[in-house]
């Protein structure tokens, strides 16, 4: 575990390996050329980690692509400036052919989504040896051995077996490790990492970040890291360049930036970052009655196979989960991807078949026909993660917000118009935006539209499934504020599904931690986040990056037992977790007896 202070390269006289000067990149748009990066300059010193930080549209990824010679052709091009390697090699304006030598040998890059970066029909071993042979890094006979060494280098378990596996057989974290191995195959001087951990769970993110640091120590590789996450910046960077709208806002050593940001934008950005343990107090909700009462909820998906396409096994996505939410209260469901938290949200809205009992505002949903469900649906609505995907691109937003009212026949004609206009104002938009299409709005505005649509029926409960995860931090804070305000004024209850502990800390009254389809710990926000009792919760919390460079994060706690799998053969089911109360309202699963997965 290295604090930034111990990063190699610090303290030595800085030796630049890459110099960017006056870089300007233009992108062709229907309205003419538009600069996406303007007059950007920085130097990358040997062995250090430089972070390009900024929100979406800040030009940070474009800069990385320009360095790699991967700008989308012919829409984007470098119009001015230079990108020079240490030996004076100029990269700007180089041909594709000349770039091939530079890539992999001198600079390589890893991307956000390792699944799409790997070829799905080639084994890991072949993809590694291909890179080695393409760049003449070794002879054909040596290649398999070198590939194995590379996989060991990135600390993959069972390296020999992985060589013969295909990308889909590996987990997200392992895939990113393979990508790093491929990137480092030819020992480049510079590694560009574009949001390398954004698609990964926090625990896996912590492991991958640690790996990058370890490799950097061993090989002295210089890292240019592109990220929007100030927690990752604090943990990884020696120096930071904060970008906004294609321009450099501030460049500073990481400690100076976090301690005393000089520009207002950097300050704003840092202030907007949600921090664990710094959440405002929340008013105590009225716990005398429950608006959501879920008991013994189970969701299983059949897995078919064989010649007769019969059900061979079942995915136990949710297994015997019970919880309650009071009016005006927020219950957060948290866990790693695949733990079943989103499935619970879908079950509540009747989008997946389920067993057990779900009561919304006292009304039982089990066994009802679609027609019988319709009145209950008015009380529960959902806001999804990606506002772009949950809005119909071919319908004006005004009509989309009006739809729930039409479907439930609650308003028509001018009354409908008035209600929609009121909803638009309610979420901080103006009614004159009603006639526009979704693509004309920013991500934050689109999420406001989705919230307006969810509010149209005056529901008592809103299921927010990762509703702010896709938004930039500053926008995230605004949307969270809106949700909080609505909760106070309307007495809304939220079921807030998220993987982001810091966000949960901001919004939740109570937290339920899920693993493999079951709740392993539940209690008030203070109980679960400040005083976690279950090993799984502790491990999750230990992995959260802290946006403070002074903070030295202890190593991520090891996982207890195996990873486990929610897939069980027909007739078998996982052992039910037995919750017991260790403090008033704080329930924890008993330590699990080890079982064969």
């Amino acid at each position, binding site marked *: 575990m290295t604090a930034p202070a111990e990063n190699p390269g610090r303290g030595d006289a800085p030796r630049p390996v890459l110099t960017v000067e006056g870089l300007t990149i233009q992108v062709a748009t229907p309205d003419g050329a538009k600069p996406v990066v303007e007059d950007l300059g920085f130097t990358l010193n040997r062995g250090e980690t430089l972070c390009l930080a900024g929100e979406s549209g800040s030009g940070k990824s474009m800069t990385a692509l320009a360095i790699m010679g991967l700008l989308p052709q012919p829409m984007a091009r470098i119009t001015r400036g230079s990108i020079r390697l240490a030996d004076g090699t100029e990269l700007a304006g180089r041909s594709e052919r000349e770039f091939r030598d530079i890539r992999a040998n001198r600079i390589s890059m890893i991307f956000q989504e390792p699944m799409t970066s790997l070829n799905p029909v080639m084994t890991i071993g072949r993809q590694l040896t291909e890179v080695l042979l393409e760049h003449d890094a070794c002879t054909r006979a040596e290649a398999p051995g070198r590939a194995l060494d590379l996989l060991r280098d990135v600390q993959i378990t069972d390296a020999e077996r992985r060589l013969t596996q295909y990308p889909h057989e590996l987990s997200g974290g392992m895939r990113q490790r393979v990508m790093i191995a491929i990137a480092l195959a030819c020992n480049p001087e510079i590694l560009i990492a574009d949001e390398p951990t954004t698609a990964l769970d926090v625990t896996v993110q912590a492991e991958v970040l640690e790996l990058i640091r370890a490799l950097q120590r061993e090989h002295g590789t210089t890292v240019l890291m592109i990220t929007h996450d100030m927690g990752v910046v604090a943990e990884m960077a020696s120096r930071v360049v904060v970008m906004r709208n294609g321009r450099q806002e501030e460049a500073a050593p990481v400690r100076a930036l976090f301690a005393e940001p000089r520009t207002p934008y950097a300050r704003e950005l840092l202030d907007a970052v949600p921090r664990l343990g710094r959440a405002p107090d929340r008013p105590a909700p009225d716990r005398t009655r429950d608006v959501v009462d879920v008991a013994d909820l189970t969701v299983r998906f059949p897995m078919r196979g064989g010649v007769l396409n019969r059900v061979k096994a079942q995915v136990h996505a949710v297994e015997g989960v019970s919880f309650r939410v009071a009016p005006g209260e927020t219950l957060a469901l948290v866990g790693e991807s695949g733990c079943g938290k989103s499935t619970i949200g879908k079950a509540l809205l*009747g989008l997946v078949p389920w067993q057990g009992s779900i009561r919304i505002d006292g009304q039982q949903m089990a066994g009802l026909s679609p027609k019988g469900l319709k009145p209950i649906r008015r009380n529960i609505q959902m806001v999804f993660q990606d506002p772009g995907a949950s809005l119909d691109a071919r319908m004006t937003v005004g009509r989309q917000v009006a739809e729930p009212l039409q*479907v439930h026949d609650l308003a028509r004609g001018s009354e409908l118009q008035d209600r929609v206009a009121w909803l638009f104002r309610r979420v901080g938009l103006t009614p004159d935006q009603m006639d526009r299409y979704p693509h004309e709005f920013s991500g934050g505005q689109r999420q406001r539209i989705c919230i307006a649509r969810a509010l149209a029926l005056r529901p008592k409960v809103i299921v927010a499934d990762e509703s702010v995860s896709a938004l930039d931090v500053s926008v995230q804070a605004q949307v969270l504020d809106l949700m909080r305000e609505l909760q106070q004024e309307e007495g809304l209850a939220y079921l807030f599904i998220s993987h982001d502990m810091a966000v949960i800390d901001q919004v939740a009254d109570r937290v339920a931690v899920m693993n493999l389809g079951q709740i392993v710990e539940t209690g008030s926000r203070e109980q679960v986040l400040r005083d976690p009792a279950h090993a799984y919760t502790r491990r999750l919390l230990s992995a959260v990056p802290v946006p403070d460079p002074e903070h030295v994060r202890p190593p991520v706690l090891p996982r207890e037992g195996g990873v486990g799998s929610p897939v069980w053969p027909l007739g078998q089911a996982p052992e039910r977790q037995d919750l017991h109360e260790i403090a008033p309202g704080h329930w924890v699963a008993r330590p699990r007896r080890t079982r064969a997965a």
Partner: protein
Amino acid sequence: MTEATAEAPAAGRPRGTGAVLRDLLRRPRSAFGLIVIVLMVGAAVFAPWIMPYDPNDQMFDGLSLEGAPLPPSGQFWLGTDLLGRDLFSRLILGAQTSLIIGVLANGIAVVVGATVGITAGYFGGWIGGILMRFTDLMMAFPALLLAIVLAAIFKPSLLIVAMVIAMVNWVQMARVIYTETRSLAQREFIEVQRAMGSSTLRILGRHILPHLVYSIIVFGTLGISTTVLLEATLSYLGVGVQPPTPSWGNIIFENQTYFANAPWLVFFPGLAIVLLALAFNLLGDALRDTLDPRLKGRH
């Protein structure tokens, strides 16, 4: 307000037919397509008034002294055929047949294909399985053979030929629409609709269909040209529209043997078919771009 919302305020409004038409005329390619189609439809509708001669009149002066057809000249603009009939007049009347077949047969094919595709794609399961296996079966069967068999069973007439062509042509449409509906049905905004309690009919009509309109237009216009070509093939094989009613296809069929001596008899009807197909393709492509709110303003 971000830059995205600050652009020309009128641009985002749903546009009327007039605006779409103006947009189509502004693009050179779609303007060409539109003009060709208007001219051909005009020719078909006003055929009795604009035909210089009676298309079925075997004129005495329409043949040379040796009895051979005449090449294009001031008197017969596109020349005459083997029986001394004016080719230009026959082409104009043939436009009627070809366009009726094109619109009717293709219309039926589009409706049937889209219905099958949407039903199979949205509901999936055994309904989708049965419908798509049937579609595969139709696809695997040689289309021309099927058309010949059907045309041989029923006595060829304009309506029967149109039905036969429709039965052969709906398959591609069903395949395309099926694939698209399947991916649409799993999208989040459809899930939102189901969570809202919208009826299946509403989801299909308001949210699935608008996304498919563009594929339907493109494949529909593409279909018009294949339809006209298929009719030409059927006519060429003698199981299409029966003489003396002219269609572009049977004009080629009647005159093919004299291709070497009288090339204009094959060239001009062939050109008409190619022009019609091209015009509909260009228009279809442009319509798709014009109607997509996300692509507005781009040329």
